[in-house]
């Protein structure tokens, strides 16, 4: 019994760390541009495919493939911003939401056409043999993926905290007008924000894709779960979002272990609804209220 709990908690931590990556990407875009980027799930999917193709076509190792995936996805993210967000400057949050939704539809369809709906396995160099730590089974792949996720989150946090661009981004999120008056280049920062968000999504896609294969619709659920985490974790807090991601991962793991795998996805939405209903006022203060 205890073994199963421990095993599920560990599995949940792994997945949760990656959900947190996804959520951070969404959060930075929502915080700076006030855009709910529905195409984030497809950037995640592209991350998975880019990593796959980097390994199979270019012959690079898995670690390099993740970096390449992040770079390519960042370019794709900037393209999404130019195509679907920038032309709608000054329109309602909802309009931009729909236009990124349109991009999401298009990218998903494009992936189906180009790469077929069949799932593909990212070849990783890790031994399939599980390691046994007391009662818990782990693969080196999972440990590696978890560490990478944690490293990326830390890197993201350090970037926001200490880099010049990170400071500009935080300034824009806190007080847009003041930041613009201080000479922050909004155009460039919007593109940079999308690039950053896309890179985070791509990292998540390449990591989770290595565990569960890559396929064109793989981004749908992580997108929605990412939003759930952003709202649960509190807009604007990297640490809060990371912890919320881990909690969601663990809760899902336990649900799968003790209840039913069919209801795993219910956990995110159930928790989201409960959090929203318990403290709507607090949540409304976390983000700029949209309308």
């Amino acid at each position, binding site marked *: 019994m205890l073994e199963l709990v421990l095993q599920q908690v560990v599995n949940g931590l792994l997945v949760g760390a990656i959900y947190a990556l996804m959520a951070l990407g969404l959060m930075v875009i929502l915080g700076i541009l006030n855009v*709910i980027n529905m195409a984030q799930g497809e950037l995640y999917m592209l991350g998975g495919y880019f990593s796959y193709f980097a390994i199979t076509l270019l012959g690079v190792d898995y670690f390099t493939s993740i970096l390449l995936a992040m770079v390519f996805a960042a370019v794709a993210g900037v393209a999404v911003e130019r*195509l*679907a967000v920038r*032309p*709608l400057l000054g*329109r309602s*949050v*909802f*309009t931009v*939401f*729909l*236009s990124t*939704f*349109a*991009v*999401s*539809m*298009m990218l*998903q*369809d*494009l992936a*189906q*056409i180009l790469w077929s709906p069949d799932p593909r396995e990212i070849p990783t160099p890790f031994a399939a043999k599980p390691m046994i730590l007391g009662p818990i089974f782990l693969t080196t792949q999972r440990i590696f993926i978890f560490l990478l996720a944690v490293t990326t989150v830390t890197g993201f946090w350090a970037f926001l905290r200490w880099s010049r661009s990170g400071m500009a981004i935080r300034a824009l999120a806190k007080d847009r007008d003041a930041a613009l008056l201080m000479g922050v280049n909004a155009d460039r920062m919007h593109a940079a924000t999308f690039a950053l968000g896309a890179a985070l999504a791509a990292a998540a896609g390449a990591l989770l894709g290595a565990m569960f294969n890559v396929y064109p619709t793989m981004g*749908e659920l992580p997108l*929605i779960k990412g*939003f*759930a985490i952003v*709202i649960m974790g509190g807009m604007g807090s990297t640490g809060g979002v990371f912890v919320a991601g881990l909690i969601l991962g663990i809760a899902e793991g336990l649900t799968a272990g003790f209840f*039913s795998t*069919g*209801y795993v*996805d*219910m956990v*995110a*939405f*159930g928790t*989201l*609804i409960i959090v*929203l*209903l318990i403290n*709507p006022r607090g*949540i*409304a203060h976390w*983000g700029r*209220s*949209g*309308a």
Partner: protein
Amino acid sequence: MRRAAWGGAFVALIALPTVVVNPYARHVLLVALMFSFVALGLNVVLGYAGQHAFGHPVFFGVGAYASALLSVRSEWPVLAALAGGTAVTTLIALAVGYPCFRLRGIYFGMATFAFARVIYLVAQNWIGLTRGPMGIPSVPPLELLPAGLVPGVAREVRLHVSLVLLLALTLALLHRLVGSSVGRSWIAIRENEELAGSLGIPALRYKMAAFGVGAALAAIGGGLYAHYVSFVSPSELSFHYIGFVFIMVVAGGTGTLIGPVLGGLVFGVLPEVLRVAEQARNLLLGGILLVTIACLPEGLVGLWSRVSSWRRVAREDAGEAAPDEGPQATQYVEPLIGAAARASDSLEMQSVTHRFGGLVVLSDVSFRVEPGTILGLIGPNGAGKTTLFNIISGFLQPTAGRALFSGVSITGCSPAEVARLGIVRTFQITSLFPDLSVEDNIRTATYLWSRHGLASALAHTPAFRAREAEIERMVEETLRLVRLTSSRTVPARALSYGAQRGLEGALALAPRCRLILLDEPAAGLNPEETAHLREVVLGLRARGLTVVLIEHNMQLVMGLCDRIVVLHHGEKITEGTPQEIVADPRVVEAYLGSDPVRA
């Protein structure tokens, strides 16, 4: 002319099967018609009430399941199952909507979306009820017009005709609803929820009504669809359909009656047309949506209104109206004032205290406003005047103390409840319904006395028509009084600053309240406009209304007010007639500082 266009479109739509003979094309058309109901439903929530309910189209699938289950499991006849399914879906929608409406903006949207996913997962996993992913097969077929009634007509044609008739009926009813106080309240909430509240419109109730009506329409579409294709599966509750309905509404034209139908027909048929490019269907649909959003912000119907607005501009240029002359302020005409103030209508502050965190904004403020008088509330910036208005009008609850109106405590009431008791306010920063025309602004503001039930609005009862005629008289009078008759069709956003303040005054008069709170009404007005304002306020008092005004224009305050209350740092430092106030050294001190030698 307009009627003819509607009639023509209706006849063309109903006669379509004579041209469209291919059975597959007829099938596509039927499905598109069914989706028009769903799109109309979302449009009530999104377009009219302005609520971004991302998950709302899930009620299409819920309606499909409800009707299918009622007819398969409980063996209800198809029409009864449709009605029952619609009722069940509406109830589910109200249960979902109520908690979600505690949230606003995108958080509200995400909450409805989360509920939609939960509903999907329940349908997938509650095998005992829904058979899970296998879905419900052999749902009894749809028959709206029995074959015996119109012999010799093919089933698809009978269905088509009955669907078009049902759609026309739905549109007619929606048209009446939108034109009534219900629709005006929805639009008011969409445009400016805070102002709507201060005009007495209970936002939650109307949002719930929109959510329910929208869900009922979606359920009708879903139920029809389930019986028509005789199969329901969880995919009807999925992401895909939700996005699809949004495309129909937005690309068709949100907040218009015909837009969603147009969107439903075009985007219901389009995917089938695009079947030639089967694989790239979503690619093309997404592209069309993207282009529509960027190039046609008002949707497909925007095309038509653009053309007609050019024509209207051309017509109006011909006859320019003369500038408005306001009536003498003493010549009030009856519609403006409903119930004159009663002798008991006094407003009383009892030891009102308010703190924001550790900051004391109001401290133990007490005073009384006698009915039929004008009270001025003055004091340097930051004295707590607007906070006091917010407390009286229900936007803030005081930390301690209470406000009484006609001897009844109004502390703890919502802004809408306070308005219903007879108090209306204006805002320091001009607050209007920016995208509504001047006259629609005023019509909306009559809510408190012009509201009526759903049934009388739908049936256009004589009482309803009399009420609507009275609203029109009110609009005329108020327009004349604030001298905006010639710009009556202009959107409020496009008015000059002075005219906007005037319209704001009109919005305070239209509810026929007994006590009016004016927050810096003269700010930014030129001397001539200020003089007119003075006339209007004096006229209100002459008719027995009570006015409380915050104002920095001392000349206006001194000439207008019967009594003045002076606030400074949240405390009432003195109260009296204008003469007493001018002579009071504490007032001079508050405004200019004490002891000029030390300062």
